[in-house]
């Protein structure tokens, strides 16, 4: 099952399911004569999406860029918080409720503030993406660090390891499985976060494109953009497995 062929065969089940789903959808749309504004057929989504490929592509690029920058910031913030919290029980108790609270801010409510504070360059979008995605990463890391075996920590202490060395040699690698779980959750939200961020204020991007097409009652093009979003997200998700294989090969089961 190695090589490109093996990998392709592993994808068969997903493809089968998708194709069955699409067939049912196509059949339903044809049979029920539902209006394309309400539910366009998959074929129509594909052909119209293809016809508008230049425009979709032009809007996908800024979204990808914003996603990359935002998720990088999110990773940095998530790690910084998790490490800080791991080192200081005081900070842990101080920050945990605030982290949770940060997730409850309806972005719609704070969007005007973001615009006023950060303008509508990259900054407010990066803030939104970071806000949406840093939380699973921070929580995953914090709990990963916390799950370290006491006896393992003791072994390190017996070697005279400083708090930092204990962290580096045991807590950090021990948290990798948790981290990658969290990374997968976080990265999945990143692209949606970017699209949401574009509602806050942007001149281009898949979010802007969707909004415009929605207001033009072009549900087919909205769904085409959704499709592109999904493809990007699934690719990024797949990428995490690759990264995990490179960074922490021992953390995957055989």
């Amino acid at each position, binding site marked *: 099952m190695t090589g490109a062929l093996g990998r392709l065969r592993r994808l068969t089940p997903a493809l089968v399911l998708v194709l069955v789903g699409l067939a049912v959808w196509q059949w339903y749309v044809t049979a029920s004569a539902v209006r394309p504004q309400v539910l366009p057929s998959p074929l129509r989504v594909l052909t119209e999406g293809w016809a508008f490929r230049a425009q979709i592509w032009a809007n996908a690029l800024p979204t990808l860029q914003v996603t990359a920058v935002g998720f990088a910031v999110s990773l940095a913030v998530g790690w910084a918080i998790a490490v800080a919290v791991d080192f200081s029980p005081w900070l842990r108790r101080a920050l945990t409720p605030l982290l949770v609270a940060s997730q409850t801010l309806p972005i719609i409510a704070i969007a005007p503030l973001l615009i006023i504070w950060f303008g509508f360059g990259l900054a407010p979008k990066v803030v939104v993406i970071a806000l949406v995605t840093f939380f699973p990463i921070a929580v995953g890391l914090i709990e990963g660090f916390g799950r370290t075996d006491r006896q*393992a920590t*003791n072994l390190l*202490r*017996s*070697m005279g390891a400083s708090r930092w060395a204990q962290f580096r*040699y045991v807590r950090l*690698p021990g948290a990798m499985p948790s981290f990658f779980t969290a990374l997968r959750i976080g990265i999945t939200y990143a692209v949606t976060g970017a699209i949401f961020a574009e509602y806050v204020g942007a001149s281009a991007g898949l979010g802007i494109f969707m909004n415009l097409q929605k207001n033009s009652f072009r549900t087919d093009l909205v769904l085409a953009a959704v499709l592109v979003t999904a493809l990007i997200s699934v690719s990024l998700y797949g990428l995490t497995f690759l990264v995990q294989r490179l960074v922490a090969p021992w953390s995957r089961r055989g």
Partner: protein
Amino acid sequence: MAELKGAEHKLVIEGLRKAFGPLPVLDGVDFDVAPGEFVALVGPSGCGKSTLFDVVAGLEPPDAGRVLVDGADATGRVDPFAYMPQRDLLFPWRTVLDNTTLGLEVAGVPRKAARARAGELFEPFGLAGFEKARPGELSGGMRQRAALLRTVVQDRAVLLLDEPFGALDALTRIDMQLWLEGVRAGFGWTVLLITHDIREAVFLADRVLVLGPRPTSVRHETVVDLPRPRDVSMITQPRFAELEAEVLGQVGRGRAAGADSEH
């Protein structure tokens, strides 16, 4: 007086007490160890041997009592000791070689030098060829040898070894025992060894301390007056059998007396 006593001893254990919640485990453990001395500890399963090591190594605070090293209070200090815990605790994210260099890396030895130092021991420890393996690919005995390697390569003044040879077959065990016996003198290590194998205790140690059942304290001390260096032929000598019988008798006495507290 303790200070005076401490001055001539590498290690002094004074009245250590420890309880886990309602369960008393250490009930005033007292003994001392001369520099370069090899002391074996034997005692019934569950009596508190590993707990004693945890306290001595500075990992668990005692409820009472203290630990002196070179005459100075070292209660809670970890740096004089290299500790091999009962569980091997090899980390799955490091190769076997990198597991064994862990103590050195923590001590700031550059990675390359650490690898070279630990790598030299793979041959005598019967682990050659498994440097790049993951711990999960080792047999139980191989894991134990890797854990021992990780401990001794740290080159600390006092070694605390908790059943280092438990998972080894008779001959590999004798090899490892002979290896330890050989290098120990050269490095001037002071060694405390927990073992269940009385023959091993007598073969390796200058003194064998017999611990009583939980809550434990030192019940008996047998001085092993066999010449050094030891070799395998000594095991068949009558004096060896005598010493073995003495320790076994003491273990039995201690156990019988404490049988109630076990149940």
